[in-house]
């Protein structure tokens, strides 16, 4: 392939507004395989890039359901089957008492699902990524905003895409080596 050596082209902007506008224009121009990098979350960027909604809430719901069932199941099994014990004449299946630990395990499993789900769906930990090779990319965690059009995009062309990115008014455009 022509662009085997490049991961893509990255344009550097100085404000979130410029980045969001650039992302809109790039999408209107037909680019699809691109990503934006910013030092803080930008709500509008998600829509501008046409990114899908995350499945994370569903994963967290499943985590919570498993936590509730596992917690309550453990209590039921331990108190009625594995270690039945008469405490002040209360029934072995003392469900009102069991709600409290089951509530806590629900929260615990949901929280673990949220954090692990977020990290794994994001493909992290990933210490190496080609975009780190881009010049000045360290500024993406400080005060600069980057739009990267990847060479995997069908419309990608080394010189024309560079010209397109330069037309968006970036501070500079750089190659991203693999």
């Amino acid at each position, binding site marked *: 392939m022509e662009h085997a050596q490049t991961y893509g082209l990255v344009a550097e902007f100085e*404000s*979130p*507004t410029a980045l*969001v*506008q650039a*992302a*809109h224009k790039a999408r209107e121009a037909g680019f699809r395989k691109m*990503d*934006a*990098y*910013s*030092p*803080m*979350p*930008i*709500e*509008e*960027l*998600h829509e501008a*890039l046409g*990114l899908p909604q*995350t499945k*994370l*809430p569903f994963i*967290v719901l499943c985590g919570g359901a498993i936590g509730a069932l596992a*917690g309550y199941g453990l*209590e039921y099994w*331990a*108190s009625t089957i*594995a*270690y039945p*014990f008469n*405490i002040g004449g209360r029934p072995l299946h*003392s469900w009102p*008492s069991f709600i*409290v*630990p089951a509530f*806590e*395990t629900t*929260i*615990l499993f*949901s*929280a*673990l699902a*949220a*954090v692990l*789900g*977020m990290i794994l*769906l*994001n493909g*992290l*930990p990933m210490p190496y*990524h080609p975009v*780190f090779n881009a010049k000045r990319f*360290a*500024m*993406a*965690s*400080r*005060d600069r905003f980057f739009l990267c059009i990847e060479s995997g995009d069908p419309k990608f062309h080394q010189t024309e895409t560079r010209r397109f990115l330069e037309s968006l008014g970036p501070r500079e455009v750089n190659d991203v080596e693999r």
Partner: protein
Amino acid sequence: MSDTAVTTPAGGGREQQAAYLAPGHSFSTVTDKISSIVLTQKISLGWLLSLGVSASLAGLLFVSVGYLFVKGIGIWGNNIPVGWAFDITNFVWWIGIGHAGTLISAILLLLRQQWRTSINRFAEAMTLFAVACAGMFPLIHVGRPWLAYWLMPIPNTMGMWPQFRSPLIWDVFAVSTYATVSLLFWYVGLIPDLATLRDRTPSKLGRVIYGIFALGWRGSAMHWHRYETAYLLLAGLATPLVVSVHTVVSFDFAVSVVPGWHTTVFPPYFVAGAIYSGFAMVLTLSIPIRAIYGLQDFITMKHLNVMAKVMLATGLIVAYGYSIEAFMAWYSGNHYERFMMLNRMTGPYWWAYWGLILTNVLIPQLLWFKRCRTNVVVLWCLSIVINVGMWLERFVIIVTSLHRDFLPSSWGMYSPSFWDWATYIGTIGLFLTLLLLFLRFLPMISIFEMRTMVPAARVEGRKH
């Protein structure tokens, strides 16, 4: 930057944002200012001295606990009938302090209170360290701490399982979940800032260590989207959790039959008390920290004022709790309840009860006055007074209820031993040691969230 310059009247969203961040800041100044504390500032003599003192106190904790393990809890003043004393007082005090951190990071996030941004990181760290101190007390109080794992539902050769009908087991679940979720919340909040430190640190070792914990964060748009979703969900989960934790702590008392403990008002009044003491601790810590590290631009007078108002409100709820306790003791017509209340007020521990009323109810009424809320010295002193008051509250509830219950023949007295004090002061040392290390090695203010407070962070033009 003078403090008066940032008190703009509350208005629309942007004016409010500006008031919580001094004007003139950009993405880079916010980043550089906060990260420089960790990356470029030299270790100061004051920090080293503070660390030395706190670490020595933490050493005292290790000595106390070591001696405890050798001799058993007979080294404390605990006895029968006062089987719970300093240990549980300290447990509840510490865990209550932790609650403000979760309140600030989770509940205020859901309520879109932007002022939380500059204090949440450090309040969450405070939560973690307070929970670490709290969790130690029940474990060392069990008498044979090497058997403390019996509290956990772990399959064992004895075929025994925990007693799930007991509030003490509920507490194990609540506190361990709380510790875990607080750690997750804090760590997730740190990931983008760790990436900033990774990219900015001049030291190679720092780059490797921060890099490992940053997990290769690169600020991709889709990552931020999932990140924000996860963060919001965590806040939604931590909110009922934090309420449940102090509720369960209050169940440790309320589910029993001891007069003075067996009260339905306990859960809400404990939760309010927890927030009260937690905000007091946030102020106790943040007032000196903002002065020492020059963070008046980020933790403004407006923040301190708002926190003082939260203290005033929760303090009033707590005061209501005290009055209802006294009222119900009289109104119930229950002989033992009535005696318990009279004994609290006029018995051998009268000084603790009236000290509590003085420090937790009367003196904090100064917070009604704006001049007190905006004077950092007065506010700091008030926060210390409230910390003392909340400690006394737990002491009063635990010791005065236990020392004279139903049968006069089983009455007794409790007085703390040297080791009680040593253990308590030791946990303060441990807490401060952890906090000082945190201030030195991690950004104490969330950098990425502060960037969103910069006026330029708002995307102009397109509506969304």
